[in-house]
C-alpha cells in the first residue's frame, strides 16, 4: 500500500507533557548536537524533535582521544561531556529555535545549583523542554554518579522544576539495580517525564596492545546490542510510575521503535542509529512505523503505548 494511503488512516503524531511531536522520533543527546546547524539538519531530515548536546556551566574538552570505538554489537564512547559551556551555546540554540520542531535542551551539572543555573539559561534561550542528564557513565562527578542516587535525583529535579516553566524530563542510567525506584523519585519531585536509557558502562581492550582502547578506559555502550536492556528499563519504569517515558537505546528501525512504544514509551530517541544508518534514519523509522500501524490496524501511537505491559 503506498504511503500516501497510509497517511490518511494512520496518525504518527504523539504528545508528551508540554510537547506536540509530529512523529515519535527524537534525536538523542550528544549526537550531532554540538552545533545549531547540525541540529537543523536533523530537523530537516524528519525528526519529530531534537535534543541538544548536554551542556554544562564551563567549556569542557571532554576526554582525550580515542573517544569512540565500535564493537560487533554496538559502539562505546567516552566523549566525557565535551561542550562549549552554556554561554557559548546560546548562539547554537537560538539559531534553531523557531524552526518547525521542538528543541529539548540537555544539561548536566555537578549539583542542584548548577542544574538550576543551566536550566534557567536554557529556558531563556527558548527551548521547549529540558532534559536533565543524570546518567552519563563516563564523566567524573557528573551524570550517572548523581543519577544512581535517588535523593540527589529528587533534589535536582525539584530544584529545576521550581526554577523553570518548561517541562522537565530526567534522563536515567541503566547502571543501577532498580531503575524504577529512581523513576519514582522523579515522579515524587514532579518531573514531567523520563528519558531512558543512557549508555551502559562498558569497555573494549585491544589484546595486541594489551590496553583499553578508549583513553578513559571505560565508556558507554550504545547501539543495537543494548536494545533488550533499554526495553526492560522502560517496561519496569512504566510498571511503577505514571510518568510518560521516552525510550532510547539501540533503535535502528521502525520495529525497534514499536518495541519501545509497546513497552511503554510515548516517543523514542535515536542516537547511534545515526551512525549505522545516517540521518535518513528518522524518516525511515517513521515510514516503517506507519507501515506497521497500517498493517496491524493501529490508528494512533497512543493505542500502542505500553500494550505489552502484562496484567
Amino acid at each position, binding site marked *: 500500500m503506498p504511503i500516501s494511503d497510509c497517511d490518511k488512516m494512520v496518525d504518527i503524531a504523539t504528545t508528551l507533557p508540554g510537547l506536540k511531536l509530529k512523529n515519535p522520533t527524537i534525536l538523542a543527546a550528544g549526537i550531532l548536537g554540538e552545533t545549531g546547524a*547540525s541540529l537543523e539538519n536533523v530537523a530537516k531530515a524528519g525528526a519529530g524533535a531534537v535534543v541538544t548536546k548536554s551542556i554544562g556551566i564551563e567549556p*569542557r574538552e571532554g576526554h582525550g*582521544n580515542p573517544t*569512540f570505538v565500535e564493537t*560487533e554489537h554496538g559502539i562505546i564512547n567516552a566523549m566525557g561531556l*565535551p561542550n562549549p559551556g552554556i554561554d557559548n551555546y546560546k548562539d547554537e540554540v537560538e539559531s534553531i529555535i523557531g524552526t518547525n520542531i521542538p528543541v529539548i535542551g540537555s544539561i548536566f551539572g555537578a549539583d542542584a545549583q548548577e542544574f538550576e543555573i543551566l536550566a534557567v539559561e536554557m529556558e531563556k534561550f527558548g527551548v521547549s523542554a529540558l532534559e536533565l542528564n543524570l546518567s552519563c557513565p563516563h564523566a567524573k562527578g557528573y551524570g550517572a554518579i548523581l543519577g544512581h542516587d535517588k535523593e540527589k535525583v529528587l533534589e535536582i529535579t525539584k530544584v529545576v522544576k521550581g526554577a523553570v516553566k518548561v517541562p522537565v524530563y530526567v534522563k536515567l542510567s541503566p547502571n543501577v539495580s532498580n531503575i524504577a525506584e529512581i523513576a519514582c523519585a522523579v515522579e515524587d519531585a514532579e518531573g514531567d517525564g523520563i528519558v531512558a536509557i543512557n549508555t551502559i558502562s562498558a569497555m573494549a581492550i585491544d589484546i595486541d596492545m594489551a590496553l583499553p*582502547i578508549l583513553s578513559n578506559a571505560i565508556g558507554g555502550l550504545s547501539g543495537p546490542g543494548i536494545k533488550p536492556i533499554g526495553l526492560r528499563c522502560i517496561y519496569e519504569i512504566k510498571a511503577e510510575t505514571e510518568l510518560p517515558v521516552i525510550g532510547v537505546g539501540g533503535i535502528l528501525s521502525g520495529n525497534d521503535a514499536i518495541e519501545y512504544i509497546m513497552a511503554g514509551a510515548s516517543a523514542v530517541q535515536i542516537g547511534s542509529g545515526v551512525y549505522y*544508518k*545516517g540521518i535518513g534514519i528518522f524518516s525511515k523509522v517513521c515510514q516503517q512505523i506507519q507501515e506497521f500501524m497500517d498493517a496491524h490496524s493501529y490508528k494512533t501511537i497512543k493505542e500502542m503505548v505500553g500494550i505489552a505491559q502484562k496484567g
Partner: protein
Amino acid sequence: MPKKDNLELPRIVKILDIVEENPDVKTIFFEDDFEAYPGQFVMVWIPSVDEVPMSVSYLGEKKGITVKNVGKATSSLCKLKPGDKIGIRGPHGTFFEATGDSLLVVAGGIGIAPLAPLMENAHNIGKQITLAFGAKSKSELLFINRLKGCSRELNISTDDGSLGFHGFVSDLVEDILKKQSFDEILCCGPEIMIKKIADLAKLNGIPLQASLERYMKCGVGICDSCAIDGFHVCIDGPVFSGKILSELADFGRFRRDACGRRVEL
C-alpha cells in the same frame, strides 16, 4: 552515510619504515590492506597518547602517513621506530577526483600529504599537472623528487624566499592563473591559504576541490566535533568542492576547538 563493512576499531599495524622528510616531518610506512583514495584520512591511534586524523600519503601496498611534528600526538608519532605498533581506523571521508585533463595542484606545507598520491595517480593516467607548492622556508619542503616525477611544471614558493617564488603560494597561484588556465584546482594547506585559492578559483571560473581540517573525535559523523555549518569534515569532507565551500559561513574564518567553541582560525 551507509554503514561500512569493517568495524570502526583500530587495526593494529606494525611500522615498517620511517623516512625523515625534513626536520619536522616524517613518513611512517606500515602494512595494511585497506584501499584508500587520495585525500582520505585514517584515525591513527598512538597507544596511551591520542588518536588523530592523518591523510594517507602513500596508497600502495605499503601505506604511509606523513606527519608534521606540531604537538603531543605528532611528536609521539615522530618518535616511533620500525617495529613499533600503531592503530589504524578508516580510511574515512571524501577524496580528490581529477576529472579534468589539466590540473593545478596547490599545496601549503604538510598539505602536500594527501595531494602527492593524487598527483601520482593522475599522472599515471596521463593528466597534465602543474604544482604550486608553498612553504615557510626551503627546509620545510618535502617529497620534492616524488613530485618532480609526476608534475609537468613544479612551482615552489617560500615565505622567506629561500627557494623559488618569494611570497605566499596564493600570490604565486595568482601569477600562474594570469598566464594559464586549468580544468581544475586541487588544494590542501592552511585554511587561510585555501580561502585565497578558493577566491582565485571562483574569480577565474575554475572548479575547485580542497581539503579542510577540523578537530576530530569520532571520525564517523556523530559527535559533531568536526562540524562546519552543518557539514562534517569527517564524512562530508575532508575534500569539499568550491561550490560547497562558498556556502560555508565559517570557511576561512572560524573553526571549533575541542570543546565545540567557535574560535577564529
